């Protein structure tokens, strides 16, 4: 237990050895390569148990099970400081692809808010392994049945409704993007976790909150979704319109983003990318994603970085309006 990283790696190996049949190693295995030469460290900038953590572990397990890389992946949680702890840890680690980060677009919000001393130039993008979009939700007994009702009410009575957000987090920015686009204003109440938002909306202490689609569907009762921020309607909730359909040019797809330090050799990034791409296309992973309102897809590193740059510009514009 003296070294958590090693301990987790050994645990992971032990589990894999116990639970998984030792199958033939796939044809694409990187046996002959000198990378990776030792177990990889995947830094997750959140506490264990959240979506980013779970997806990192699932994909890491899959890569190991299928022998997509010659070494196992050990997930390390470095929570806190709007991601600064995770970035510091990445900087202390290897810059040859043995130390990577699994994050999402909260990273861009931290950059747009000027928190932490990191920016896109610190990273090389390995790619997106799918992602999910959130919904805007009101309480089930709310007087508003559609987003149009809600916006009309807010335009007539500015700041009359309370929105539960964590200031400087995704719910805040997505809400602000919609508010800027549609021209309305809400009052905020601080709620730093999904649990806090749920508690406030269900208890009638807030009117509106943002949830991951999976959180909303799991709740099952007590909540009413007004708008989905994905690009297309989600099959699990066919009656919830997207913001784009309603005429507001706002969408938020929060990808599972794999990052390496900026100085990582391209060949190693490519090696990691091909393993991740194979993992995200695995039927078991696809099924897990579908069951959890995540979209399984693969976006290569360059395209992911271009998307992130575009998103960061948009977020900076929003940050300028809320500071």
């Amino acid at each position, binding site marked *: *237990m*003296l070294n*958590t*990283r090693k*301990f987790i790696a050994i*645990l*992971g190996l032990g*589990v894999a050895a116990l639970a998984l049949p030792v199958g033939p190693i796939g044809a694409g295995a990187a046996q002959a390569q000198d990378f990776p030469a030792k177990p990889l460290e995947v830094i997750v900038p959140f*506490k*264990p*148990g*959240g979506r980013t*953590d*779970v997806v990192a572990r699932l994909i890491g*397990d899959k890569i190991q099970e299928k022998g997509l890389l010659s070494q196992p992946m050990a*997930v*390390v*949680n*470095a*929570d*806190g*400081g*709007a991601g*600064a*702890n995770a*970035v*510091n*840890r990445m900087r202390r680690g290897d810059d040859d692809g043995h130390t990577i980060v699994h994050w999402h677009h909260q990273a861009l919000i931290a950059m747009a*808010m000027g*928190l*932490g001393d990191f920016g896109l130039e610190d990273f090389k993008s390995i790619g997106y392994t799918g992602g999910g979009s959130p919904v805007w939700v009101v309480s089930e007994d709310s007087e508003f049945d559609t987003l149009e009702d809600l916006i009309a009410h807010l335009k007539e009575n500015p700041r009359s409704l*309370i929105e539960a957000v*964590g*200031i*400087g987090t995704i719910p*805040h920015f997505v809400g602000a993007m919609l508010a800027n686009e549609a021209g309305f204003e809400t*009052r*905020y*109440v*601080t*709620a*730093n*976790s999904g*649990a*806090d938002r*749920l*508690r*406030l909306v269900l*208890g*009638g*202490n*807030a009117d509106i909150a943002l949830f991951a689609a*999976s*959180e909303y569907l*799991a*709740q099952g*009762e*007590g909540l009413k979704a007004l708008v989905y921020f994905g690009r297309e309607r989600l099959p699990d909730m066919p009656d919830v319109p997207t913001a784009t359909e309603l005429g507001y040019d706002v969408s938020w797809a929060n990808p599972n983003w794999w990052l390496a330090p900026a100085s990582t050799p391209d060949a190693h990034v490519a090696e990691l990318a091909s393993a991740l791409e194979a993992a995200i296309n695995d039927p078991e992973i696809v099924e*897990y994603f579908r069951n*959890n309102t995540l979209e399984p897809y693969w976006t290569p590193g360059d395209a992911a970085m271009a998307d992130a740059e575009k998103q960061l510009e948009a977020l900076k514009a929003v940050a300028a309006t809320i500071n």
Partner: protein
Amino acid sequence: MLDAFLALAEWQNLLFLAVGTGLGIVVGAIPGLTASMLIALTLPLTFHMDPVSAVTLLIGEYVGGISGGLITAILLRMPGTPASIVTTFDGYPMAQNGFAERALALGIMASVVGGIISWGFLAGMSPALARFALQFGPWEYFTLVLMALVMLAVLSQGSMVKGLMAAALGMAFALPGIDSSIGQARLTFGSSAMLSGFGLLPVLIGAFAISQILRDAATPQESGRMDMPKSKLPIYRSDLGYAPKLLRGSVIGTWIGLLPGIGANIAALVSYSTEKQLSKEPEKFGTGHEPGVVAAESANNASIGGALIPLITMGIPGSVTEAILIGALTIHNLQPGPLLFQNAPEIAYGIIAAYLVANVLMLMLMWGAVRYIARIVQLPRSGLMAVILVFCVTGSYAVNSSFSDVWVMIGFGLVGLGLEYCRVPLGPFVIGFVLSPIAEEQLRASLMMSDGNLAEILTRPYALLFLALALITVIWPYIAARLGARARAKQAEEPS
């Protein structure tokens, strides 16, 4: 429900529960390692287990982890978990006075009773209680925490001014980090390591464990300060007289545990100071008074049962540990929430059943092992402290995999040493540190909600109730003194 207990009777589930509880006790007792760390470490193991076994293992670890903290809190004045800070107030003086086994026995009994009473609430009236807890918004949270802060003043042993100074200093150390109400860095001096502020665990084990280690290193070895533990744990028939105190502690614990984000440490604090206020001999609290241990331990264990209520009925985790528990369920495609009872009743009732059985197992394990554990006070201090130091460093590092947390821990060890040297109590210092971020965030959230209108508090009856209780806490000692004086005056008049 019966099915759930039958499922637990399967040997492998019972084994997982026992292993989890045992591990939890060990980890909970070691300063620096906490239940949430243990659960995070074993989480990957549960991916490949069936969901019921996974849940039993994790619930066992949760219950064991909170209970185990009392051992080191009593024997070494090093709370193994934040939940047992308050247990040190009377538990450690008892051990110093030669009643270590008695303090442990009382602590264990109170823990189990607290666990079982809160299980009753969990099994019997979860939905109603969860709905009740949900009404609590930022105003209620703020006034509740304010009440706990005010109680600190009452708790301070010796000089009230020094106690308040300690609390204020603790609150000041809670300021750096990201100001969650505006999302901006505050008092970080441009350091990215300071962005997350000072972590609870490094501060806690720094102030209590590291300062104790430093003090031990500076003083010559004292041996034979404590007697060899007796072979029998002292529990007497007269302990039945603690029943009302146990009930009060358990109800307070359950009720505070119900509120997500308000943890076992606040439950123990409120229960302890309530007992002290109701007591006929409040001056004895803090000097090794048995009801102090009973109040703290019944409440901190009961708070787990309370915290499980919003978790299983609404899917709202009450603590970091429970958030990880939710992660373990989602891996198995299970989402805690109202649908859990329909979609996977074996899990929902499994959690409830496992909680009760874990408490019983905890009693058996701790009772059996406690007289061996109590012997750690007989070990050479130098060796014992070296081992604890290793765990402290490892634990601090492991929270966020960050070495700056270790420096924070050492720094707070020095702060703790300095405070003790000036006879400023450590309890209020750490509790001020824990409570003030919650109070600040909730007050500012309240003001955001009401557009800066402080008068809105008048429309919130529960918030007013907490404010009134806080006020009574402050003025009660003076009223009591007045009443006492009047009674004495009357007595003096009567005999004539």
